[in-house]
């Protein structure tokens, strides 16, 4: 069994056990037990919904501190395209990227650069015979995990091109290696991340799509370095030529950005994890058979909606669209087809291993026992009130019934069942008070039986 590490974790001190996060979890991975939320590692997809919704800010994402960069001789920042949406358009790309560099990096390369390579390669990959249709984008790691967990039959549809993040790291390392000034191990590449799911990708060697040539050494949250970037914006040396990406490339930060690269195909892009689930449901039962490419992003608006960003996702979207519109009129930046093709054909863009399902465990390995348990679950569900209030610590009545059958909860965890039991008990207590035992001496009362 692969080790499933996660970047979403709980600050136990802050958690009040309020159950708010329970029902926001799209995979039912959270339970409240002993007054604290517990995340089931095998079900968590790192989408960050619980981080967004927790009123006590007890759900956090594990990311790396900026100080980690000091472990390396040559420090490279690779910011996600969403970074550009965090700042007003009066700041130029060069200004923003230079302000990031001034945090202590030797070089800044936008992940949008890798996005342009991957985006252009998509038209070749689209024709690869191994995919059933629709081809499904692998851009959002939370959606990839969602498919593994909830839509196992669609894992073969997932595009096996590496992510823009990995490609950017790879191309940077390749260039630095060719230049020969630093050993690969002396180079530290740091992803500036908008979300928890990407942080997991960086920090989880088990799910890693990389080898040492596209090694990423840390994931730093946008929100952690945002104040320092803002400080640097007005007093840093603006480096010309630091920015060289197309408007299409940094639009990957928005839902539909990737689809732009397959313009002449029937494409569908959906954002927001629940919306993605609804559409994947339709794809899985064969309803959307005319769709050729599906881009699903867990956060509303796409990566600009990531839980580690600062700016409101709609505002960030406006900034990015404004910049794209202006740039489309003036930009001369173009990535030559031959360049993309040579990278594509080199094989360095492909994830080697198949993306396998991570189907939920059945109720029992033996089908007869599983059926028996299913029947027990249904009987229990009937007894429960069906309010899905979450007070029991499970995300709904059905989930509680399943937890009870799995031996992980009790019927009286339900407050309504408990109330009924207490009432039955008080009726019985009352009865006991009223009825005297024949051998007992009456208390302040004459015997009723007299002739």
């Amino acid at each position, binding site marked *: 069994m692969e080790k499933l590490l996660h970047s979403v974790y709980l600050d136990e001190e802050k958690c009040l056990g309020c159950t708010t996060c329970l029902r926001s979890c799209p995979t039912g991975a959270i339970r409240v037990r002993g007054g604290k939320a517990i995340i089931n590692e095998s079900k968590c997809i790192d989408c960050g919904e619980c981080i967004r919704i927790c009123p006590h800010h007890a759900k956090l994402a594990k990311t790396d501190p900026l100080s980690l960069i000091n472990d390396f001789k040559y420090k490279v920042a690779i910011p996600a395209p969403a970074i550009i949406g965090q700042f007003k358009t009066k700041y130029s790309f060069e200004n923003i990227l230079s302000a990031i560099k001034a945090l202590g990096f030797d070089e800044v390369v936008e992940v949008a650069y890798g996005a342009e390579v991957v985006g252009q390669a998509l038209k070749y990959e689209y024709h690869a015979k191994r995919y059933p249709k629709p081809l499904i984008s692998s851009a959002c790691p939370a959606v990839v995990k969602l498919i593994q967990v909830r839509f196992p039959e669609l894992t073969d549809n997932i595009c096996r091109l590496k992510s823009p993040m990995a490609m950017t790291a790879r191309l940077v390392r390749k260039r630095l290696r060719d230049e020969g000034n630093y050993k690969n191990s002396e180079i530290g590449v740091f992803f500036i991340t908008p979300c928890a799911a990407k942080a997991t990708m960086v920090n989880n060697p088990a799910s890693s799509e990389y080898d040492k040539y596209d090694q990423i050494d840390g994931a730093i949250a946008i929100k952690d370095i945002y104040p320092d970037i803002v400080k640097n914006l007005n007093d840093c040396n603006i480096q010309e030529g630091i920015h060289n990406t197309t408007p299409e490339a940094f639009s990957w930060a928005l839902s539909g950005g990737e689809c732009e690269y397959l313009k002449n195909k029937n494409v569908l892009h959906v954002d927001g994890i629940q919306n993605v689930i609804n559409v994947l449901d339709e794809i*899985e039962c064969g*309803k959307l058979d005319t769709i050729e490419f599906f881009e699903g992003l867990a956060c509303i608006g796409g990566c600009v909606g990531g839980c580690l960003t600062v700016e409101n996702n709609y505002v960030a979207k406006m900034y990015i669209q404004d910049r794209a519109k202006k740039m489309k009129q003036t930009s001369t930046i173009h990535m030559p087809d031959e360049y993309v093709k040579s990278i594509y054909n080199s094989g360095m863009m492909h994830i080697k291993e198949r993306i396998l399902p991570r189907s939920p465990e059945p109720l029992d390995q033996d089908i007869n026992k599983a059926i028996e348990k299913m029947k027990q679950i249904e009987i229990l569900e009937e007894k429960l009130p069906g309010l899905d209030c979450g007070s029991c610590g499970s995300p709904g009545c059905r989930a509680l019934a399943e937890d009870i059958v799995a031996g992980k909860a009790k019927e009286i965890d339900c407050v309504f069942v408990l109330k009924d039991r207490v009432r039955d008990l008080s009726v019985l207590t009352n009865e006991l008070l009223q009825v005297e035992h024949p051998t007992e001496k009456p208390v302040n009362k004459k015997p009723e039986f007299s002739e």
Partner: protein
Amino acid sequence: MSYELSFEVERGDFETAGEASRKIKRTLQQLGISNKVIRKVSIAGYEGEMNLAIHSWGGKIVLEVGEDTLILTIEDTGPGIKDLDLAMTEGWSTAGEEVRQMGFGAGMGLPNMKNNADNFQITSKIDEGTKIVMSFLV
């Protein structure tokens, strides 16, 4: 040991259409049925559910889970199908314009069900209804 799951589907019930197939899918996952079989059952079940909503006057979907076979029965009261051979032809449909505009009624329903099931039987009586019994090997 066997297990049964059943759903009523009303005519024109598009808001909830798809719900039965989703529940069937989840149940089969919990029972440990392989993903490949689940996919086939979901596709056939969804087509059946749609047919009930579009063509019938209402009907029922029943899934029986046995140790080595799944049986999916889709039974309705309805107009019945005049020419079964024709109805089994890909692309043939009697769905009205309104339904087609919603993206349904392309006429792939029955053949698609047959292609996904290991065994497919259909019986139909005019002005009474249609019954489809499909089995899937686990």
